[in-house]
């Protein structure tokens, strides 16, 4: 895998990495067709459009039509990638459910600008529900790469999945957290740090703050594991259970509402397989316009020191018993 990434730094932000990975797929597989809904520049699918104009269709501002079109391409033997803002992909949820997922079609959904990443545009553009909506679908695979190199590799990996995949990325903010030379293993919980007192599970760019929080906690004498749940569905039950067994307490940190997203996925799994306390650290409500994504992270308690504080509270609450 490392040979695919001569210089991970050159990938740019996470949406740039996805745009570059799609270009590569376009070269390697003539059946790849890319669609977008009037956001070719923002989603970086414009690069594909310039290189492969005949295999690119800008559907206009009509996400529902885009999903149906993608379904038709898949029925016609093509491998469509449909890119839109995560928020507006949700507009086509029923089309995704009834047409794409129900027929188990080979349609890849590239959802950009997720979470708080589209900070300037405000609450109307900040998706805090999409993980929940996509992971309830029967056939859907849900992937949230952590950083640009992982996003690049994840695109190549989901191309090998025959069936619908939802890939969730942010806009620009995407600090490095994974080892760029590591092989990407779709479906496997990735342990970024090992620890014994508490496990922090997260995904996407907020992971950088989770890792930072773990370091702060370690300085205070807590042994903290950090796991990257980049594949939310199908969930890696075995590794999650092992993590729960080892630590006995799990804190889930996500750029999403604390219902149905990562917290839901982890809690549902552990409730059945190995019940331990699971605590959410998530968006407190709708977002707001902000000059920086960091302002939103701070407001919603998703920066390292707030996360560390919540972890200490959880440890105090549950370790006393």
């Amino acid at each position, binding site marked *: 895998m490392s040979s695919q990434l001569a210089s991970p730094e050159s990938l740019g932000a996470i949406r740039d990495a996805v745009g570059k990975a799609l270009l590569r797929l376009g070269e390697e597989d003539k059946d790849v067709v890319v669609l977008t809904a009037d956001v070719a520049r923002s989603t970086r699918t414009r690069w594909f459009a310039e290189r492969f104009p005949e295999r690119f269709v800008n559907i206009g501002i009509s996400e529902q039509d885009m999903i*149906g079109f993608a379904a038709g391409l898949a*029925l016609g033997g093509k491998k469509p990638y449909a890119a839109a803002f995560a928020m507006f992909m949700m507009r086509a949820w029923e089309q995704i459910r*009834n047409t794409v997922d129900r027929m188990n079609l080979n349609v890849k959904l590239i959802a950009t600008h997720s979470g708080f990443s589209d900070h300037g545009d405000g609450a109307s553009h900040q998706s805090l529900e999409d993980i929940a909506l996509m992971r309830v679908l029967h056939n859907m695979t849900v992937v949230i790469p952590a950083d640009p190199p992982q996003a690049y590799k994840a695109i190549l990996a989901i191309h090998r999945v025959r069936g619908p995949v939802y890939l969730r990325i942010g806009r620009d903010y995407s600090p490095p957290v994974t080892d760029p030379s590591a092989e990407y293993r779709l479906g496997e919980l990735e342990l970024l740090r090992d620890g014994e007192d508490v496990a922090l599970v997260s995904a996407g760019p907020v992971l950088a703050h989770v890792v930072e929080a773990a370091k702060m906690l370690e300085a205070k004498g807590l042994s903290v594991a950090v796991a990257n749940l980049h594949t939310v569905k199908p969930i890696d039950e075995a590794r999650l259970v092992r993590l729960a067994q080892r630590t006995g307490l799990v804190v889930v940190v996500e750029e999403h509402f604390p219902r149905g997203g990562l917290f839901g996925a982890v809690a549902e799994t552990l409730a059945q397989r190995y019940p331990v306390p699971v605590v959410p650290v998530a968006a407190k409500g709708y977002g707001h316009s902000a000059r920086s994504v960091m302002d939103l992270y701070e407001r919603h308690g998703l920066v390292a020191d707030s996360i560390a504080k919540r972890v200490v509270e959880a440890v105090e609450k549950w370790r006393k018993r």
Partner: protein
Amino acid sequence: MPIVSRLELVRRIDSLPAQPRAQILHQVSLRARKRILRMASIEKSIHVGSSLSSLDILAAILIGRGLRRTGDKPTEKDWLILSKGHAVPALYALLVELGKLTDKDLDTIRDIDGLEGHPDNGLDGVDVSTGSLGQGLSIAAGIAYAMRLDHTWTTHRVFVVLGDGELDEGQVWEAAATIAHLGLSNIVAIVDANGFQLDGATSEIKNKGDLAQRWRSLGWRVIEIDGHNHEMILEALSEAEASPQPVVIIAYTRRGNGLGVLEATGGQHV
């Protein structure tokens, strides 16, 4: 004209001129109507009125014109999408004519182990799963575009049957604009305009405006016909196939056609 066996009919009909083809379709649709009524007597919840209004259109496409295949790839065949999926009993009744279902299979309509209440592409003869209105035309556009990429789009067609009530769904118009914009002339849309939707007459629930003009304004060619006249339907289909632009056939029909009690009220269920 003498009654011909069903499979023999399907083999022969392709080469016949329009008029005898229409006569065969008349026999076919009589048999199919009886099957729909039988299904309705077994399972009251099926959409009889809509099935009867769509039947002649579907018969003309499936049997009068026939769906052709030139290779194994999905882009090397004609497709039929029943976007108004609730009319699926009409499709099932015709699949018996094509030997893909038996009369006995029809008795299992909406049974737990039987035929699905809306089209499911797990069944041979159903190309695309539908049921949620408004989505068929978008799917057709994707298939038609795949045909263009595979250079089969002058050989093969995607037929989409919609209802006039279904035109309330905004996605239909999103797709109509996409198809016209991309010039996907291998799509033939047929609107089964029976004047009714679930809760009543289309004019009462939501006015559809000047239907022909709505399509035309986006760049579609519009052909208006009597949707129960087999000859007219076949003629319109041939005309649509020869057209260099996408064509919508607005087929004026009667809900419950052939069943007096239903036809009079525009009802859906018996």
